[in-house]
């Protein structure tokens, strides 16, 4: 358990509270601006987590974040941008086996140089985030950076969850069709584990956002001690393991289009568990009983190529913006279970990888609407997005990674959101979420209060249902929570 220093915390709070109004630090004739925030997040579970193998402590988040951003205007055509993020989290009684400091950070999260090269070429070089596509809740074409879902699933803004990578990002404007070309090259300078998604601790520990305990039984006929030898096969720091993306954007009338291709890796690990060979003779079995068996589990991140397109259009007649995303994942890898006959019984004996071309698409609408009897001055922004994933080469043995739960050939989701603000944007309520047509829900509510330029107070609640504990958002069923955020920004 880490030790907090109340005196230091009190000192920081006293300084912050005494400050009447704190603004960005401006240096060198405003060519350098430094600002940021201090954020404290306190969360509790709304449901008992002990059925899911966790301890009974209801606190699920006690996280402090310091983020400092620096903008440096070097010349009229060159700027430097840098983001530092430091995070400290408490240790949680509810978690099992998660090492102290697992969620902590002290990191130059982003640092990049923006350069205008001539009239039409713009370069951004350094550690950064890049977002493509139109989808909000789900990552269809927004797949340039991996994400960190270890500390709060997907319930924070993606901006705070993406893992920035070192890359060369160029924009080149073309004179026809108001078009431009965007090129991305991730040469692999990052730490190897930063090239893929960071997931909650699993296998040997239970984090607060670890999915439910697996329903897989190895069905070994005799009690044999198991040792796990996990080998993460992250992309290498080599040119061969670069990621490359190309996007062409253009306008036809009031329609805006983008077509893209991104050569990357599967950012989600796929476990490969080789067949467990049991000895046939008595001596071998006795040896196993004494020494146990070592399971070699390879976590693989296979290569992946994604081709896609997106479109948006402002439809004036209905006052709405229409959005489309279409992505074709070539040979998308999935976990597949293999049933074998072991000592006369059928068991899941090992996992392997099967591939399927996969289509993901989105049709979305955003429409601001004045509902004067609810809000006289400010509109309600209403958003809806229909999303489907279709596995073209679906196989019956494809399962959710880590579970004996089949993957559907067609998965359908509806994302939605409504937001407005009252009292001159001092109070902003938001309701949003995702409906999984298999019967799952994820609802996010928030109420933000902005009393002045420095303080922000957010009350949030997240609610998750699922038709099963082992399917889609059902993997997190029961993890309803209430969050209080206090932010001091300058």
């Amino acid at each position: 358990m880490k030790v907090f220093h109340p005196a230091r915390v009190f000192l920081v709070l006293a300084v912050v509270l005494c400050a009447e109004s704190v603004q960005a630090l401006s240096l060198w004739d405003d060519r350098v601006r430094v600002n940021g925030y201090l954020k404290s997040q306190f969360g509790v579970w709304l449901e008992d987590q002990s059925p899911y193998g966790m301890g009974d402590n209801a606190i699920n988040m006690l996280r402090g974040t310091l983020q400092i951003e620096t903008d440096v205007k070097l010349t009229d055509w060159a700027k430097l941008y840098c983001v530092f993020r430091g995070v400290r989290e408490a240790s949680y009684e509810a978690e099992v086996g998660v090492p102290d400091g697992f969620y902590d950070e002290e990191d130059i999260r982003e640092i990049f140089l923006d350069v205008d090269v001539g009239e039409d070429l713009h370069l951004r070089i350094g550690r950064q985030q890049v977002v493509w596509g139109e989808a909000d809740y789900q990552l269809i074409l927004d797949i340039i950076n991996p994400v960190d879902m270890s500390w709060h699933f997907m319930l924070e803004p993606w901006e705070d969850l993406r893992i920035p990578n070192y890359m060369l990002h160029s924009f080149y404007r073309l004179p026809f069709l108001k078009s431009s070309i965007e090129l991305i090259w991730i040469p692999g300078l990052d730490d190897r584990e930063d090239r893929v998604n960071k997931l909650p601790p699993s296998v040997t520990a239970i984090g607060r956002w670890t999915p439910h305990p697996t329903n897989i039984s190895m069905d070994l006929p005799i009690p044999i001690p198991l040792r796990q030898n996990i080998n993460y096969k992250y992309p290498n720091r080599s040119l061969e393991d670069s990621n490359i993306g190309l996007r062409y954007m253009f306008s036809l009338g009031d329609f805006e289009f983008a077509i893209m291709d991104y050569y990357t890796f599967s950012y989600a690990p796929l476990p490969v568990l080789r067949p467990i060979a049991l000895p046939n003779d008595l001596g071998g079995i006795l040896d196993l009983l004494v020494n146990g068996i070592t399971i070699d589990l390879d976590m693989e991140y296979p290569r992946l190529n994604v081709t896609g397109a997106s479109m948006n259009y402002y439809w004036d007649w209905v006052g709405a913006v229409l959005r489309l995303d279409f992505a074709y994942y070539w040979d998308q890898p999935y976990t597949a279970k293999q049933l074998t006959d072991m000592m006369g019984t059928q068991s899941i004996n090992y996992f392997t990888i099967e591939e399927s071309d996969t289509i993901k698409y989105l049709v979305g609408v955003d429409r601001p609407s004045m509902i004067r009897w609810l809000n006289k001055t400010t509109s309600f922004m209403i958003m809806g997005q229909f999303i489907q994933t279709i596995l073209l080469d679906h196989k019956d043995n494809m399962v959710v990674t880590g579970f004996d739960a089949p993957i559907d050939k067609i998965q359908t989701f509806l994302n939605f959101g409504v937001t407005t603000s009252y009292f001159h944007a001092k109070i902003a309520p938001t309701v949003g979420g995702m409906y999984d047509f298999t019967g799952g829900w994820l609802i996010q509510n928030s109420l933000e209060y902005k009393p002045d330029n420095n303080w922000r107070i957010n009350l949030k609640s997240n609610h998750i249902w699922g038709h099963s504990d082992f399917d889609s958002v059902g993997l997190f069923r029961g993890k309803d929570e209430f969050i209080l955020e206090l932010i001091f920004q300058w």
Partner: protein
Amino acid sequence: MRNSYRCVTSTRILRSASLLLVILAFLFPGRVLAERPEIGTVIDHTNWQKYKEYLGTAVQTLMEKNYISYRIVDRHKHMTFPIDPWTEKCNGQASVGPNDELINYCGAGVPFPQIDLNDPKAGAKAYWNQDKRYTGDTAIMSPATVMIIDKKGHERSFTAEMLYYKATERTVLPPIPAIPNSDTRAYIRINTLAPFDMKGFAVVMDIKRYELNLPDQQWAYIPMLRRVRRMSTALKGDSFAGTDLTYSDSYPGAPYEFTSKILDFKEMLMCAYCDDACMRDLVEKRQGLKIYNIPVEFTQIYVVEVTPKDKNYHYSKYVYYLDSEYWGIQMKECYDLKGELWKLQTFYGVLGCGAVGAAGVTSMTDLQADHMTFNDSSKSYKYNADLPEKEFLPQRLKELGQ
């Protein structure tokens, strides 16, 4: 020619007005004959009723609440602007059509430098004139600070860089008078610099040429999404970033979408000229909602009532106070859907910045809620800077976004 005509017209009007005042004074003693104050007079909540003929309706309300006071200064000298030659050259060409549309406009300048008050289209002509007033071909205001102030004086603010680019009615920067083969009338780009949770938010508005009848377009870079999003421009009555302003307060729409009527043409007290020192003084001495000692001068004003033809418009009407010499908007009153006076937008010293109607300091006061949005762009403004059109492309938002 233009000034002499205006003198003749003004003299006739003043004579008629004087006669009328004498008659009315007999009928309604004590109500009509407002005293013309001397230069140097301070008008505040103690004496405003003596001079109310020189004050706009909303200003009288603010005086009564002791939110503002005026100090009368000398009339500023006449200024020339780059559109004046176009106004002279094209004088007499333009007309207003049956649906209040502008016909035969020659591309730049004020289309109707003389207005006959008996002309049934006089209101539409005055409204077209303010639409075509000189605002510079480009403008950069950086930083501009927008303060949101409640009746207790509590303030929040945001700071932004504001860029403006005219694609039509250009008189200084080539190509003149318009960008060829463009359906754009003007672009606006706003990049928010502070506070932290608004930092990086940027928006580009593409205001389409009226005659094409195309919907305006808008894109926003949303830092939390790290993405440029196409935005709907349907709701012009939506509050802009929590301020008292709506999107339409900058661009209410084409003048032919409104019915305009001249209510009055008279001498009024307006903060018509305010140089850098004057603007700094206004900014520094403001106390919450209260702004005292505003320098005002006698200005010939067209009071124009502007009623939207669209019954779903968010205001029932506007009343504009237009400077008859430069056609700048000195003040604009907005009426709610019940017909009650709701807001007053004031442009302090529209001539002080070097362009008309793009004042360095403006305010929008909600008279019903006692709330105000105060915009201070006086620290740094620059007109007719060589600003390339590419700065207003949606792709540029992406390039600049963090």
